[in-house]
């Protein structure tokens, strides 16, 4: 589904990566090696070179917003552009959003909350819910459970699996080897600006 060939961004690459629908790829590697930089480059948020395509369609043949809707990056710390939560979910299927919120142990009233009062964990789960509600073909998750306790991390993992079962391809960054083994269907290790497949 997602094909990355010869991707270069600053000091990283050239990187090749394929992600199929239903796959969950764990991306591990030491801090500062450029894991976030790689995910940002795949979603075309920073200048980069390489040949990327989704379902055979070239990235350059799509507008950048169109590409990012399908290949969606969820940063570890996301931003908010309105005072309350609700405007961040405008235009999305309401039932779908509420189901996702419940799955993440958030009340439906969360939509009315003030962004300024959200805890780190709430922000992280809401950001994931926001991305999931867009039904992207590829999800690029940057440390999706870093600010969460065990229970909530488990809920996030359940939703990620559900998204993969529904046909999305997932790449997630983690520092937790146990989680990498538990959640992923495949593992890649980022080292020396290159990706290495980790044998199963």
């Amino acid at each position, binding site marked *: 589904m997602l094909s990355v060939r010869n991707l270069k961004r600053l000091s990283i690459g050239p990187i090749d990566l394929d992600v199929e629908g239903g796959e969950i790829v764990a991306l591990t590697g030491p801090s500062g090696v450029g894991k976030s930089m790689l995910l940002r480059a795949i979603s075309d948020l920073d200048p980069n070179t390489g040949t990327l395509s989704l379902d055979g369609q070239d990235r350059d043949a799509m507008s950048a917003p169109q590409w*990012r809707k399908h290949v969606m990056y969820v*940063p570890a710390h996301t931003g908010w552009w309105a005072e309350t939560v609700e405007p961040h979910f405008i235009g999305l299927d309401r039932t779908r959003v509420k189901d996702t919120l419940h799955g993440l142990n958030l009340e439906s009233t969360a939509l009315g909350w003030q962004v300024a009062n959200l805890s780190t964990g709430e922000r992280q789960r809401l950001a994931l819910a926001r991305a999931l509600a867009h039904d992207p073909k590829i999800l690029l998750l940057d440390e999706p459970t870093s600010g969460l306790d065990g229970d909530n991390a488990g809920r996030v993992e359940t939703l990620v699996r559900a998204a993969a079962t529904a046909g999305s391809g997932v790449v997630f960054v983690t520092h937790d080897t146990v989680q990498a083994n538990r959640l992923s269907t495949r593992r890649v290790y980022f080292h020396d600006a290159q990706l290495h497949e980790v044998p199963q």
Partner: protein
Amino acid sequence: MSAVYVQLGYIDLAIASVLLLMAGGVSVALNLGLEKSLGIAALRTTVQLSLIGMVLKILFALVSPWWTGFAALFMIFMAGREVTARQSLRLRDGWSYSIATTSLLTAGGIVTILALTTAIRPEPWYDPRFALPLLGMMLGNTLTGISIGMERLNTTLKREKDAIEARLVLGHTRPDAVRPFVREAMRAALMPVVNAMSAAGLISLPGMMTGQILAGVSPTEAVKYQILIMFLLAGTTSIGALIAVLATSRRLGDERDRLRLDRLQQRAPVHEPK
């Protein structure tokens, strides 16, 4: 109206300079260390204004479209430099200067020429006695607006990077994602001229009007000129700030709807020379 004009002699200026000496005395007495800065500033004012007085006298006598145009361009380039001189955050590779100068040239040029050919109508229309002071007033106010607008946009986009990119990753276009901050920058840019129009007459007597009254023009006539000038200033500042803010916003993005903060350059605050 010429009968009431009071000419100043050099003696009058010398008397006024006694006040300056007093200020210097206070500085020495209280050990403020300002006497040198005061002296240099006073000297600069005297030399710069005397020089410009002579230049204007020559230009006014020439009434040449070429020399007037040359002086106007010189003023615009200097104004462009002023816009960027004190910005702590600006675009790399001279883009801030280029954008500022282009905005000043376009806005100042359009409005000044419009005012000269439709409202004031001197003969010839480019008569430097009208064109240059008019342009000077436009530039002085517009450069403040442009400077505030560009600085505000640069700092807000940098500060709101996460919020902007949160929209980009969801597939919003870059213009949509930065629009609120473009609006905010425009509002900030226009604030001084809106304030000036609101306060005119109540709190402040604008300098040009005061000058005309001192020169013996009837206050009601001076007021008409001042209102015209205020409208021109509002027009120039709006056009100039709009061009500058939109161009800056464009430069901070690219064709793949990215936020290009790497095109910004942080500059250590430079202290004004003492």
